[in-house]
Structure formats: structure tokens, C-alpha cells
């Protein structure tokens, strides 16, 4: 897993609440047995007509967001299905950070496991980012070590993350390798239960 410490990137605002993982990656793309290559299917039904031509009224098809790496959305982002294909698709498309006023639990976890930083900010700040990001090309900087989101015009917001999850992301650790160092404890548990 790639570590993530500090990231400056272009905001893509998606002002909707309750975006479920069926929208992030529709089921017809869950049949692949690889981890890679899901970016082309991200938000597929919103981005494309059935025949694969782009829907021009969907903002992600706007060229100005071509290099976006920070997705900002409304509350309860990633609700529904546990499919990890959702963070895989976001990451493969180029997103490294997702900001929302709240996340669904499983999706949040899945992001951490893949080195995507999910950030919860209050609704007011999220709306500011969405408005700024909708108007022009808008870059922000996310600093995981300081737990701060800031832009060049003085906007600054702090965010919470558990120390464990912060460490995982900062170091890009392989969690299974970490757990296997506790193999004796697992052996002990199994022999006593």
C-alpha cells in the first residue's frame, strides 16, 4: 500500500448525499477477478449512457476535472454494499482523498485499507469546498500528519482520524504482516477457546 502523508490536489465536488457504492461502481463491473482497472467504470451510470457515450451534464465529464484527486461529497458517502471495488475504482481513477460530512462505516474502512484518506469535515466546510470547487479550478492541501485541510485563501479545517488508522496510512503498512506478529496471541486464543 502506498503511504499518504501530504497531498495537494484538485477538488472535484459532487454535491449529493447518500451516494451508495452501487452508484460508485455498478454491479455489472464486479465480475472481474482483478484488483486493477476499475477506474473506467467509476460512476458509470451517471457518466455514461448505456451505449457508452458520455453524459455531458454529469460534471465529472467536464475536462476541468481531468486531474482531480480530491473528491468532495455530501453526507453518508459510500453507503450500501460492502464492495471494495468502490474504493478501487476511485483510486484507479485518480482520487487519493475523499472528503464528506459523513461516511458509511464499511466504505470508510475499505478506503483506509487501500491507502485512500477519507476525511470527515462539518457540513458547512464541505459546502464551502463544493462551492469553491464548482466555480473554478480549486486546489487544496491535505496534511495527514497535522490533520489539516487548507487552501491558499486562508481556509483551514482540522479533521479527526484514529491514531491507528493514521499510522496505517502514513506508513502504508501491510496490516496482515502486522497482525501476524501477534501470531502467538492468536495461537493462545485458539488453544483456550
Amino acid at each position, binding site marked *: 500500500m502506498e503511504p499518504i502523508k501530504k497531498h495537494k490536489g484538485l477538488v472535484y465536488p459532487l454535491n449529493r448525499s447518500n451516494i451508495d457504492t452501487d452508484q460508485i461502481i455498478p454491479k*455489472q463491473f464486479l465480475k472481474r*477477478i482483478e484488483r486493477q482497472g476499475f477506474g473506467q467504470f467509476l460512476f458509470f451510470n451517471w457518466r455514461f449512457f448505456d451505449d457508452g457515450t458520455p453524459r455531458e451534464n454529469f460534471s465529472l465529464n467536464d475536462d476541468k476535472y481531468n486531474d482531480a484527486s480530491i473528491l468532495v461529497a455530501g453526507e453518508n458517502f459510500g*453507503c450500501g454494499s460492502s464492495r471494495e471495488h468502490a474504493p478501487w475504482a476511485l483510486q484507479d481513477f485518480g482520487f487519493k482523498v475523499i472528503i464528506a460530512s459523513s461516511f458509511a462505516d*464499511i466504505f470508510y474502512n475499505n478506503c483506509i485499507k487501500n491507502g485512500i484518506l477519507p476525511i470527515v469535515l462539518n457540513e458547512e466546510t464541505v459546502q464551502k469546498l463544493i462551492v469553491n470547487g464548482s466555480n473554478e479550478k480549486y486546489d487544496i492541501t491535505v496534511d495527514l500528519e497535522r490533520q489539516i485541510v487548507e487552501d491558499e485563501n486562508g481556509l483551514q479545517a482540522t479533521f479527526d482520524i484514529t*491514531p491507528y488508522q493514521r499510522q496505517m496510512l502514513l506508513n502504508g503498512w501491510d*496490516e496482515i504482516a502486522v497482525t501476524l506478529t501477534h501470531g502467538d496471541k492468536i495461537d493462545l486464543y485458539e488453544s483456550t477457546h
Partner: protein
Amino acid sequence: MKTPKTIVEKIWERHVVHQEEGKPDLLYIDLHLVHEVTSPQAFEGLRMNGRSVRRPDKTYATMDHNVPTRERHIIRDQISKTQMDTLKQNCQQFGISLADIDHPDQGIVHVIGPELGLTQPGKTIVCGDSHTSTHGAFGALAFGIGTSEVEHVLATQTLWQARPKTLNVKVNGKLGLGVTAKDLILAIIAQNGVRFGTGYVIEYTGEAIRNLSMEERMTVCNMSIEAGARAGLISPDKTTFEYLKGKRHSPENYEEAVANWKELATDNGATYDATVEINADEIEPQVTWGTNPGMCIPVSASVPHPEAAASANAKEETERALEYMGLEADQPISSVNIEHVFIGSCTNSRLSDLRKAADIVSGKKVKDGVQAIVVPGSHSVKTAAEAEGLDAIFKQAGFEWRDAGCSMCLAMNDDVVPPGERCASTSNRNFEGRQGNGARTHLVSPEMAAAAAIEGHFVDVRNYKQPVTN
């Protein structure tokens, strides 16, 4: 005196392998259920790192999401076939029991776990599927995980988990005749929203919950994730112990197991981080009108008006949902015509669900222009239903009688609702495109779906026919 504890606290404490300041707990997993869609990358991860499956004996796999429900062995979609073949190879390589497409135990993973007695009170159960919450009906701590966590459990039989907050959903009173467990959970979500359970494990308590059968409890716990909660559970009781008695994987020394399970129930005086209450007497049969399960109204009501929304965002959300669903504000939901009926899914595909639906359609005919299918939750459910003649009742009424699988709940196989068409569905998600790109889903109980199939639109089953009890 011992401090009173909730069932969640008790199960948690029994499963902590390692605890350390500043870290989540390392939790032992008793049962890992696996299916074809969310596992291939996890097995591949094991191979790439030269790791093995720590406890194949605590791992059980089946095929459900992709499987065809008719012409069982003609898998037209080669990518689906590859995914199923891959699961078979992975199970062979790592020594995991698999109920594949030909196996008599095959079925939806959340139907067969309980059926086989793999699901038991006090167990920690995970699966790469958000509806793993279903198993909480037995007083197990059961939750969905992503594929990275699937790999983690395969390799270590543990997960790093922060201790969740607890939410008591207390259901007072009694459900009326014709009002089902499905209506109950839909009403709970409609009242409290699709994220009130986020960060919590829900424990369902109260008189109406105690009166539910095991299969009804599974319906309720199944949709906990639709309220945002990864897990939802019910303290085990006599109903639980009677259900599990004699199941294939139930403990041999059953009385001893029951004595142990009885200890799990939440103690009197235990405290929760939050509580919501709902009165079962007031609940009517429910129908969703929108594109998330919280967008739900009683069958007697009309589709909401965007102007009535609490905020500008909610108004936009309502407008978008109405447009997607092809509905007018203030339109009575009973006036909405449907073209498809799907009776199935991990929410409502068990024998009692099929019995109740069959009772509604018995001697009647599916409305012209409606395609109605019944997809039993497992091969065992199918066989049992056929032994009772339920298949004949459905077929005579004009339903198609299919083989077991997830089917039209998420339309990964050939069972797809075409764009713009409308389906009365006993499944759990009415998201955009869930049952097919552009498909319009209305979530209802099996009785409501059955009545809609006959009438071609939603009707209040309470006035339709006296429903059967279990």
C-alpha cells in the same frame, strides 16, 4: 454485583485476542462466509504473499451472486463463469468447504448459514457482503467487510476492530395482522433515516421483536445496514434455541450450548449509547417510493412533495428521486402500476416468506403484463417449498419458479429489470440501477409483492386477504 452488560459487550469480551492502548482490539472471528464476488482478489493476495488460510474449518463458501436461476448450467456470461470457476479453484487450493452450483446446500450465503446451523449465538461472523448483519438474528455479532478484510481474516482469523457504540432499537407493542417484519424494518428506517445506525451496532429489543419468528428476525437484522449499522442483533431466546436444535452444524451437546447461549442475553439495567423507540401497533404495510430505503411510506400514503423537504439538499434529493422513479409528487402510491415482481433475496426468500406469498396468490392469476418471479433463497428452501406444493401454487398463478440465488436483488445474473420499468421487490435496496440500469425498484414485503403481482399495482394486503400466520 456484576455490572450489567449488553450482548454486544459480552460477545466482544469473549473474542478479544489482543488489546493495546491507541489501537483497535484484535478480534477473533468464529465463522467466515465467502462468496464468488468479493473473494477472488483476497485469495490472489494470499498467493502473492505466500500466505495460507489459517482456519479453513471456520471458513465456508458458496456461489450466489452470479448464478443463473434458470437453465442452471448455461452461464452465458463468461466473466461470471470465470468468477465462479475461480472460487472453486480457490476453495480447492486452500481446503475450504464449498457449496457450488450443483451442491444441495447451495443458496444465498445469508440463508444457508442459519439453515445449516453454522450461524450460532455468541459467534463473531463476517462475510464480504454488507447483509451479513442477517446472522445477528441469532445473537451473533455479524458484519460485512471489504475484500482486504476478507484477505485478513483468511490469513489470520482475526480483524482489528474498534469497539462499536451500541444502539437500542426498542419496538413496543404488537405488529398488526398483515404487517410484517419487512414493514417493521422499513418503518424503522423511514422514521430514523438511512444513517442513524452509522458507527453503532443495533440491538433490537421490545415486545414486537420477541414475538418474531427466527425468519422474521433475520429480515429485520438483514436491513440494519440500510440504517447505516454494520451489525444488528437480537438477544437469543427460546425461539432461537428451538430453531437451531437439530441443525447439521448445531453443537452436539445442545443443552450445554443453550445454557451458555442464555448467558449472552443483554442484562437488565445494561446501558446503550443511544436508544430509539417505535410503536409496532402504528405500523402499516410499507412501500418505498424513492432511491434509498429511507424513502418509504405506508401503502395508504402518497408520494411526498419536494417542497415538504426539510432542507434545500433534501429537496434536491427528493426531486432527483422522483425523476428517476418516474413518479409525481402527491401521487397515491397505490396508484402506481408495476411491470415486475421479484420475491426473493437474503431479506425475504425463506420458506415462511414463500408460504405467505403463496397464500396471497393461491387461486388467482398474475395481472396481464406483469412478469413475476419467485427465487427461493436456497436449494433447501426450494425443495421444502416444492414438498408443500408452493411451486404449483405460484406456477398456476403465473409466476416463474426459479433456482436459488441473489438474482434480481442486484441483477448480476440474467435476472434484470429493463430500463424505465418498475418492480415490486422483496429485496433490500432501491438504489438507482440496482435491479438493472434505469430500473425502478419499490421495496415491499412478500405479501405486498404477491398482491401487487395479482393486481398490477400496490394494494393494502390487510384489506386484500386475511394473511396466514407462520
